[in-house]
């Protein structure tokens, strides 16, 4: 064959009625925005759950009449029930990790950006893409509905360890609520898998002429790796979830051993033989964390990609060590598959296995540190434009340093003995996973909003939002390191039942108030987002004078992404402040023999 047959992609569709254009759309830009907005709603809900958690920890025995009227099943005589508290932290974690932080950066921005940065008309499989969103939405509905079924939502933690999650009598949430959790997660995983197929295929197969792998923006690299991570790691949770459903409803013993007695009653049949035999709870943990660890990198990598691209744009300087940055992303993604046991150091797992996990965990700090050094080197002798997006990117660097360093304590298995299951871990993952990923989303929003909606966000509100969030974020989560080191455990409805924790109520109150400030500050973002989407200043094609392909098309791009032919790429996206260049940036599509092409 003279040339490959046109790929059976992007069955183009003329703009049609509202419902096909904006609801059941196959256009990646619309789908990206759908995911983003849905993630916003889920974030609001999960954020409110967090506020309730913090309220309880700060003032455990207090009565809340207003809340009791709103949520009668969660409160008795005005005081929150411990069962409800368990549902709160379970669902806060589940919704935030999967339905917000895997969704907004990956399904939201990934969908929006990949075809644009790749120089493609749409994703490889637009119908599958639309289907992935609606599957996701079903998952959201199922997971939220779980609050209203039977004895309430799942309450075994977002990690759902059996036997607590498998035995219905051990906590009320393990009745119907846990089943809804599993079903909701299955829909989510199906949706994410569909997305992952689209991302990987589009990035690897639909790049425009001249766009080699080593000319891709780091955002694209991160999306590719996230897709691969998801495709290879989510099946472990699928397998585990199926086995958990079977244990819960069909009497199998994948995770349930013999010799169980709940509330004084042995779990035996009428003839005295045990209802379960020989299963092990540790199997769930291995399978869950086989997903769970790559999952947290699924949350992180896009933020790392966004940060690199935003920093380069607003420093007017190429990202330092591009090849190394790609290598670091690859190393982090690869190593993420062999560190999962660091969540299980005290689980009863073999100590030899623990050693292997500890070594790999310490190793993964190296590519992570290298990324920080490269960002700092990018800032060095640069020329920083302090837009909102740049502030968020710097915030990511700051949080990545803080959160990453605390990981070094936890990776040393013996030190982890003291720190695991305490607030030190809560501090660590909120700073690095929630914080850096969240800041990445805010940064991406500030940066690509003009491309999404054709309007500029308000810079003053944006900066106000950043400062409130940055300060409140640190003041909420940094003190958690201290109480964690003091031994303050996680998931405690009332910590002050313990003598050794009584003195920490003032710190917990400080954290709670900071959390309220953090939560309230997000209102500034919502106002800015929605006001700007309708009334913001009209945006040009390239408001930031950036280099990527997405900035060579109108804001927002038309259906089919480029009004004319798709541009050809001639260089990497980081030619900023090239000495011989007429402007301080050189578009990827510019064929002039300067900058990267001069090498």
């Amino acid at each position, binding site marked *: 064959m003279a040339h490959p047959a046109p790929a059976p992609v992007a069955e183009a569709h003329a703009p049609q009625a509202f419902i096909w254009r904006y609801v059941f759309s196959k256009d990646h830009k619309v789908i990206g925005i759908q995911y983003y907005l849905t993630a916003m709603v889920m974030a609001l809900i999960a954020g409110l759950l967090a506020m309730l958690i913090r309220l309880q920890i700060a003032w455990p025995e207090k009565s809340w009449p207003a809340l009791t009227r709103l949520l009668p099943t969660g409160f008795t005589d005005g005081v929150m029930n411990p069962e409800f508290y368990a549902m709160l932290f379970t669902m806060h974690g589940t919704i935030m990790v999967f339905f917000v932080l895997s969704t907004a950066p990956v399904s939201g921005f990934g969908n929006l950006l990949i075809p644009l940065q790749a120089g493609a008309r749409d994703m*490889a499989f637009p119908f599958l893409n639309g289907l992935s969103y609606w599957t996701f939405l079903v998952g959201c509905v199922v997971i939220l509905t779980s609050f209203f079924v039977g004895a309430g939502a799942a309450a075994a933690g977002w990690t759902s360890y059996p036997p607590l999650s498998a035995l219905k009598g051990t906590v009320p949430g393990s009745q119907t609520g846990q089943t809804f959790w599993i079903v909701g997660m299955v829909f989510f995983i199906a949706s994410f898998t569909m997305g992952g197929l689209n991302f990987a295929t589009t990035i*690897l197969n639909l790049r425009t002429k001249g766009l080699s792998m080593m000319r891709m923006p780091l955002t694209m690299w991160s999306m590719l790796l996230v897709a691969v991570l998801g495709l290879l790691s989510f099946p472990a949770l*699928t397998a585990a979830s199926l086995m958990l459903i079977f244990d819960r409803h069909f009497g*199998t*013993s994948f995770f349930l051993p013999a010799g169980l007695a709940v509330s004084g009653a042995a779990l035996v049949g009428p003839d005295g033989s045990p209802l379960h035999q020989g299963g092990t709870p540790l199997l769930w943990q291995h399978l869950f964390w086989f997903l769970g660890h790559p999952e947290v990198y699924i949350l992180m990598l896009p933020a790392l990609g966004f940060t690199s691209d935003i920093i380069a744009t607003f420093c007017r300087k190429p990202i330092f060590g591009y090849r190394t940055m790609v290598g670091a992303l690859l190393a982090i993604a690869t190593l993420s598959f062999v560190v999962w046991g660091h969540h299980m150091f005290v689980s009863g797992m073999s100590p030899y296995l623990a050693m292997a996990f500890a070594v790999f965990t310490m190793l993964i700090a190296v590519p992570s540190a290298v990324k920080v050094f490269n960002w700092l080197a990018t800032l060095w002798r640069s020329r920083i434009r302090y837009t909102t997006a740049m502030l968020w990117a710097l915030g990511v660097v700051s949080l990545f340093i803080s959160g990453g360093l605390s990981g070094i304590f936890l990776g040393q298995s013996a030190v982890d003995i003291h720190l695991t299951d305490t607030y030190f871990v809560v501090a660590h993952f909120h700073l690095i996973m929630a914080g850096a990923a969240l800041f990445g989303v805010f940064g991406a929003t500030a940066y690509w909003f003009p491309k999404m909606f054709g309007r500029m966000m308000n810079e003053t509100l944006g900066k106000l939002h950043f400062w409130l969030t940055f300060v409140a974020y640190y003041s909420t989560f940094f003190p958690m390191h201290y109480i964690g080191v003091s031994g303050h455990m996680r998931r405690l409805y009332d910590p002050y039942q313990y003598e050794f924790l009584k003195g920490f109520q003032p710190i917990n109150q400080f954290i709670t108030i900071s959390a309220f400030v953090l939560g309230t500050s997000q209102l500034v973002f919502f106002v800015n987002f929605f006001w700007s989407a309708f009334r913001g200043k009209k945006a040009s094609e390239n408001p930031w004078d950036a280099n990527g392909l997405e900035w060579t098309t109108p804001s927002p791009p038309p259906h089919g992404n480029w*009004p004319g032919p798709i541009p050809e790429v001639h260089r990497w996206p980081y030619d900023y402040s090239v000495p011989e260049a007429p402007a301080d940036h050189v578009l990827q599509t510019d064929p002039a023999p300067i900058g990267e092409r001069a090498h």
Partner: protein
Amino acid sequence: MPAELLQKTAPGLSGPRDPEGQDRPPGGDGPSPDQFLDSPARFGLWAFMGTVTMLFVGFTSAYLVRRASADWQPLAPPSLLWLNTAVLLSSSVLLERARGQLRRWAPGDALRWLAAAGLLGLLFLAGQVAAWRQLAAQGIFLASNPHSSFFYLLSGVHAAHLVGGLGWFASAAFRLRRLALTPGEDGLGLLATYWHFLAAVWIYLLFLLFVV
């Protein structure tokens, strides 16, 4: 691809003037220097098969861990399984036949072989259900012992993927009938890849559950 045709499209926000997208390659005027496989659909299928493989890898690790415990009672495979396996493998063979016929410009024959392969696939499914009932008749159910749990679970998950494959058969059959699949080309290639993959998974499961 005729670049002039592309340049004739009107710039602006209303979108290009070829709604069917017939003359617009998805990625510029040609592939970029290091494209992987020419067909996104084929790549997508392989990626999907990677995911499905990881699912069975997860189950395998669970199975191996579980098999190591003291209370393991090996299950004798229901006799139907061997026949079912032969049926599934035959189905793959017939599908290859269909695929070949389509490439050799015989869509009518291809459709017949496709239907036959599909029927065998259905027969396999029915056979699996019958095998389950064979076990149940011996008093061995899902929760009876760990080996039976895994057998039902794994054969069930495999069957679920097979049902998806049969849906694909139906869709392919309809398209073949309408001649939406072009004779002389490998229109059944992806389906065949997936179907053979499922056969391979089944052989693997048999091996894991009953031979090793």
